[in-house]
Each structure stands twice: as C-alpha cells, then as structure tokens.
C-alpha cells in the first residue's frame, strides 16, 4: 500500500528504524498473571506431592511384598516334656530339606529379647520365661518352594507351626492399592480443579481484553490467530507456575527425608524407613514430578485455547 501511495504523492519518505522489540498483542499485565501463576504453582505442588506419595507407597509396597514373600517363619511353642533346642534343630533340618529353601536359622535368645523390648521393656532376663522361638526360613524363588510339604513335615515336631505371612501380604497389598487409587483420584480432582480455574481465569481475561479482541476481529484476524496469542500467554504462565510448584514438591520430599533422618529418634526413623523407604523418591519419582510441570502447562494452554475459541465463536459475528 505504501508503495502505491508514494507513487502518487510528492512526499518523499525517509525510512526510519522501527522499534527494536515488537510488543506482544496481548499485553502481559492484562492476563491475570500473578494470581494464576500462584494458583498453578499450588496445583502443581499438590499434584507433585500426591504423585510422589503414590510413588513412595507403591515402591514400599513392592519392597514389602518382595521381602515378606522371600521369608516364612516357623514358630516353636514350648511344650511340656519336649526339649526346645532339639525341636528347633529338627525343624531347621526339615526346612533345609524342603526344595527351594536356601537357608533356615533360629533367632537367638538375644535377638528375641530385642524383638520383645518395645513391648516388655529392656533389661529383662528371658531365660526365666518360656517363650516361643522363631526360625527364619529364607526362600530362593517363592513360587518353587513346596510349602504344603514343609507344613506337613512340621506336624512331626510338637508345638511347631508354619507362618507364611500370606494374610499380611494380602493386607499390605490391599492397603497399598487403596492408597495408590486414592492418590490417582486426588490427582484427577486436582487436574479438574486446575482446568476449572483456568477456564474462569481465561474468561475473565477475555472480558477485560474485549477491546483487543474486537480490534483484531475488525482487522481480519482469524479466531485461531487470536486464540494463539492468548494461548501463548497462558502457556508461559502455566510453565512458570508449574516450575515453581514442581520444584516446591521435590524440595518438600528432600526436606521430609532430611527431617525423618535427623529429627526423629533412630528407632522411629528406622521404622519409618522400613515403611516408606526413607522417603526417597528416587530418580523415577523426581522425573515423575518433573513430568507434571509440562503436563500442567500444556493443560493450562489447551484449556485456555478452547475457552478462547468458544468465547470468540460467540462474539466474532462471523
């Protein structure tokens, strides 16, 4: 146009340098920035903590199940007229003769005292009490061990019973499955809440930028172009909030792990460590939380784009 215009005018134009940086069509401050970044950061943090919790529970459940599954216990109760040490030796021999068993050993009296300490207190002389003795039977491949045969063989030892921990394992697996399912449900709810929050934020932004949208329509901008301008702004906000929330979640787990190791008494720390693997997410857990960041950012961008497109289709007049 300008060339044609200049052909018919006596004005000789002198080209001047244009502004160095082209300002965004949607001004940065016009999008409800800080509030939305904070909201997305909180949502990402909650998603990260939930995901990390799910990872911790699942890893611990697998470890529990694996550890418990590789051991069975023979309990020898004191029976009048029976010699405990002899029964222990017989039970160990029967266990070692069972296919698939790699080792069988009795828990010493000292170790038994330590096991009972939390309930009976320390400093007790258990030699005065007749307490059941335990034999730990370690298994190679749990699937190949003939436990029914071992159970049948142990009937020859008076007072001996076989504990396979099957009921415990079942309970642990059920509990872990419930926790994982609950965690996934919470994640879904957080995602839904994020989508709704972004929808409202986008509608507010569109309403406050109605003049820009109208002008863009008048000059021939397509709905796709306008939606892209707003989507870019929301993607940037989503990424910023996601990074803040994601880093917060990772820092949270490091802090918890540090606190569990240093603030708690050794015994409690050990018990927590047994239950939750010392809150160590591992590289896969951290990568999982890192993956939440682009997911939340993309979710924000897609949601805002769809909301903008819907808004534009209602207002463009075309």
């Amino acid at each position, binding site marked *: *146009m*300008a*060339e*044609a*215009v*200049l052909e*018919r*005018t006596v*004005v000789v*134009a*002198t*080209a*001047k340098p*244009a*502004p160095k940086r*082209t*300002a965004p*069509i949607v*001004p940065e401050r*016009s999008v409800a920035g800080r509030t939305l970044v904070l909201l997305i950061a909180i949502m990402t943090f909650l998603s990260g903590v939930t995901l990390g919790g799910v990872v911790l529970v699942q890893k611990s459940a697998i470890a529990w199940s694996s550890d418990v599954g590789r051991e069975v216990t023979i309990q020898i109760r004191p029976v009048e007229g029976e010699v405990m040490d002899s029964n222990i030796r017989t039970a160990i021999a029967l266990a070692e003769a069972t296919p698939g068993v790699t080792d069988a050993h009795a828990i010493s009296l000292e170790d038994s005292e330590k096991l009972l300490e939390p309930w009976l207190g320390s400093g007790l002389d258990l030699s005065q009490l007749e307490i059941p003795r335990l034999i730990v039977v370690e298994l190679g491949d749990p699937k190949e061990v003939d436990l029914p045969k071992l159970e049948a063989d142990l009937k020859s030892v008076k007072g001996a019973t076989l504990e396979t921990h099957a009921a415990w394992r079942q309970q642990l697996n059920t509990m872990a499955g419930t926790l994982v399912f609950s965690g996934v449900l919470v994640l879904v709810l957080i995602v839904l809440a994020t989508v709704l929050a972004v929808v409202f934020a986008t509608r507010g932004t569109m309403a406050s930028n109605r*003049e*820009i949208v*109208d*002008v*863009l*329509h*008048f*000059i*021939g*901008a*397509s709905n796709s*172009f306008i939606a892209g301008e707003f989507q870019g702004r929301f993607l940037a906000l989503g990424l910023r909030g996601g990074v803040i929330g994601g880093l917060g979640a990772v820092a949270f787990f490091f802090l918890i792990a540090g606190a569990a190791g240093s603030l708690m008494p050794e015994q409690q720390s050990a018990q927590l460590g047994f239950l939750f693997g010392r809150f160590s997410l591992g590289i896969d857990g951290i990568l999982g939380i890192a993956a939440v960041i682009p997911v939340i950012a993309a979710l924000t961008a897609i949601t805002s784009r769809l909301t903008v497109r819907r808004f534009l289709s209602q207002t463009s*007049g*075309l």
Partner: protein
Amino acid sequence: MIEFSNVGLRYGHGPEILRDLTFRIEPGSFHFLTGPSGSGKTSLLRLLLLSLRPSRGTLTMFGRNVSALDHDSLLDMRRHIGIVFQEFRLLEHLTTFENVALPLRVLGQPESAYRSNVTELLEWVGLGERMDALPALLSGGEKQRAAIARAVIGRPDILLADEPTGNVDSELSLRLVRLFAELNKLGTTIILATHELSLLDAFKFPHMTLNDGRVTMNG
C-alpha cells in the same frame, strides 16, 4: 462491488433497524453516509464490515452473496475491508508503528517484510516523527491518522469510516476527509458515515441518507 437488494436487518426478535435497502456502490467510488442519530448508520456499516448478516434480502459483495459464505470465506472477504472508528480504537499498549502494522502482523508477516511499508505510510499521513509514541501521547488528529493508516495498510478494496471526524475540530475534519479523498483517488472505495453537513458541502461526493431505516441516494 457492493449490491443491496431488499435488505432488512433486525437484532433478535426486535423491530427492523434497516428496511428494504436496495442500492449499488461501484468500485472506486466515494460515498458519504448521513442520517440522524439512531437512523441505522452504524448497523449499515456493520453489515458492510460483515459483522452482521442481513435478516432478509441479499447483500452481494465482491460478486458473492455474503449470507451464503462460510466462516473462512467471510474472514477472507473481511481482509479486503478496512474500518476507521470515531473513537480510533488503537491498542493502548502498542506504539503507533505497531498499531498500524497490526493487520500485516495478524497475517503472519515478519516485521522485516512490512517495516518499510509501514514507515512510508506513517510518513505519508504525517506521523513519521510519532512512530514510537503510544496512543496516550498522541493528539486526537494524530490518533485518527494512525487509525486510518492501520485501516489502509493491508490495501483494502473498501474503506469504511464511522464518524471519523467526530472527535476532531472542523479544520482537522477537512484535512482528514482530504486524506480519504486521496485514498479514493488511488482506487479504494470509500464509505464515510458522518453527521457533519459541512463536509458534504465541502466535498462534492454522492451521499446516502438513512432515515427511519430506509436509504436515499443523492448525487
């Protein structure tokens, strides 16, 4: 280029704002559009801008019935139409240069491709020294010239102007209409809505008068 045939327009289930409009506008012509407030000037311009579709009758632009066009075709047609408003409607956070370049930017052109064209056009409308100024720092006349430049930078075939002189003094009004006349000489079809009868006297272009939703062609 533009042909109205028994066109009527109503908003929703309300009364007809425009009635039985039948007229033709030839390419390269200049028309004033006059009429009292509420006579339907803005509605007629919105029809021409394709923001509205006729409630009845046939509106043909560029040889095509606009009522039968799909969204993409309407959008494509709208890019051949420029619009200037009384209240300028410049984007306050963009400089004069950026406002004028906006129609090219939305078409996906890089700044390097349109920089010289925009600069030359700004020089031509007398805003060469005000390229980096934000609209808040421009006078009313400067804003309107920037708005006109934005409307014509995409080389539209039709330029619509809705009371473009409503916010400037009479001397500047004459200068702005002269600018429109210059653009018309270059081949752009101009339809300029105004209620200033002095402009009709100063420029001997034909004018359409809207009254009670009906149009009368003069000159």
